[in-house]
Every structure is written in C-alpha cells, then in structure tokens.
C-alpha cells in the first residue's frame, strides 16, 4: 500500500511536468491545417460548387463519401505495412501504429458506407443493394471489425500483436477486390473514383470542392492517427505501471518483514 501511495504521488508530481495530453506543436499545426481545409470544404462543397450535370445536388454527398473512403484505404494500408513490420522487427511501435490506424480506418469506412447508403437512397431509391461493390465493402468492414475484436481478446502483448498482424495482412487483400469490383462484375455502383483520375468534365468549383475535401480528410486522418497512437502508447505504459505496482505489492505481501508488521498501527498509518 505504501508503494501504491508513493507511486500515485510520484505520478501526480510527474504529470505536472510533462504534457497534459497527447497534443504537441506538431498536432496543433496539423489540427489548424485540418480546420482550414474543413472550412474550405464546407464552403465550397455545400455552397459554392455548382450541381453536377449527371449527379445533380447529390454530388455534395460524394464530397464526403470519396474523402472518407480514401482515408480508410490509407488507414488499412498503414495497418498492413505496420503488421508486416511488426512480424519482421517485433517492435511495439509497429503494433500500436497498425492497431491505431485500423481503428480510425473502421470509423472512416463505416461513415463511407453510411454516406453511400444515403446517396443510394436518393439516386437508386434504396439504401442498400447486394451488388458487388457494396457487398465487398461490407466484407471489408467486417474484416477490420474482426481485427479490432481479435485485439480485444485477452492475451499477452506479444501474442495479441502477432495475431493482429496476421489479420491485418489478410484483410488488406480485400482492398483491391473492393476497388476493382466495379470493373470485374456488373453492378449499380458507378466506376472507380479513388486512385483514378477524378472526372475531367467536373466544373472548376466542383474539382476544388473535391480536392479540398480529399485534403481535409487526409489531414484529419493524420491528426487522429497521431493522437490515437499516443493514446495507445500511454495505455501500454499505464498497463506496465499497473503491473509493476501489482508486482511490488505482491512482493511486499510475500516478504516476512511486511507480513509480521502488516497489522501494526504504524503500518496502517503509513498506508493511509
């Protein structure tokens, strides 16, 4: 108990010296740039850009749909690269980077599917159709939710990281399948947009809205990734600290000197 009290007091004192969260000058700059890009995307995407000749006003949903899917793809690719690096180097950095990126990727991809469903309701008359692009997208999302589920299975850090790295490498194979689904099979979804040239017939303001949305999406993703990585790192250090404290307490309980004096008034006073 004395050890716990000392550790808590030490942590509280140490907490006052360092940063009070996961922010730094770099994240502040990144966050500021993200806000500027978001502001431009909102102004151009919702108010200035003209309706599309084919899509009409629904192009404004695409300004959200495309950046979120691009950010999700980038996130999942980072997870795959980190997974490979972890299996090679066995370094905690790669494990935390991969898992942080996967979590953000799931968020962005879920939003992509919701935005796509809203666009589908306006354009096709239904929120969802089991057509190739949508079906493969659903499978991709489920695979990465599976990645997060595997991460939540209780295990030591090394086993957990190895399991997740394998899932991270398997799941990424689905990205080219999702991407090429519109070419390989006949479906309702329009042709590829991400990783291909954006429609050259788009109006200038539409192009600007699309590109600022893409930049905003990637900046927000980068900002989130830094914060999420640092949070994951802190969680690991806190877990180590908890383990150290528990071990110290166990040693104290086990030592003869402590056992003999454990019920004396002096010791009770020190613990409190």
């Amino acid at each position, binding site marked *: 108990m004395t050890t716990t009290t000392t550790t808590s007091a030490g*942590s509280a004192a140490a907490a006052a010296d360092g940063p009070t969260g996961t922010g730094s000058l770099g994240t502040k700059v990144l966050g500021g740039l993200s806000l500027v890009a978001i502001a431009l995307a909102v102004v151009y995407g919702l108010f200035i850009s003209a309706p599309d000749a084919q899509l009409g006003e*629904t192009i404004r949903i695409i300004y959200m749909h495309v950046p979120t899917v691009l950010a999700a793809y980038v996130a999942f690719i980072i997870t795959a690269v980190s997974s490979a690096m972890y299996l090679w180097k066995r370094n905690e950095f790669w494990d935390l980077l991969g898992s942080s990126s996967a979590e953000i990727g799931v*968020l962005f991809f879920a939003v992509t599917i919701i935005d796509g469903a*809203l666009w589908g309701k306006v354009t096709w008359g239904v929120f969802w159709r089991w057509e190739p692009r949508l079906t493969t997208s659903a499978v991709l999302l489920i695979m990465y939710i599976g990645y997060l589920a595997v991460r939540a299975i209780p295990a030591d850090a090394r086993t957990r990281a190895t399991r997740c790295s394998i899932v991270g490498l398997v799941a990424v194979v689905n990205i080219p399948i999702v991407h090429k689904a519109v070419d390989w099979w006949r479906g309702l979804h329009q042709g590829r947009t991400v990783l291909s040239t954006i429609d050259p017939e788009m109006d200038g303001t539409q192009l600007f809205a699309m590109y600022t949305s893409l930049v905003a999406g990637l900046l927000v993703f980068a900002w989130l990734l830094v914060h999420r990585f640092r949070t994951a790192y802190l969680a690991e250090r806190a877990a180590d600290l908890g383990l150290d404290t528990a071990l110290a307490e166990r040693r104290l309980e086990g030592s003869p000197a402590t056992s003999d004096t454990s019920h004396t008034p002096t010791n009770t006073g020190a613990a409190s």
Partner: protein
Amino acid sequence: MTGYIIAAWAITFGSVAAYAAAVIRRGRRLSKVVPADQRRWM
C-alpha cells in the same frame, strides 16, 4: 434531397468529432497516470 445531404455531412463530421473527443479525453486521463519522462512527444 437536402435532408440526405445534410445528414451525410452531419454524420461524417459528427462521428469523427465524437471519436476525436473520446481519444483526446482518454489521452488526458492516461497522461495523469503515466510519468512525464515516458510521454515526451516530438
């Protein structure tokens, strides 16, 4: 149609903002536990 457009933007920004707030809050909570020498950011 306007409702769907607003919903798409609101869901996108709302969910990302909620997630960001949760991550930042968790980071601040953990920072109180972890000693300063183990959380020196670049």
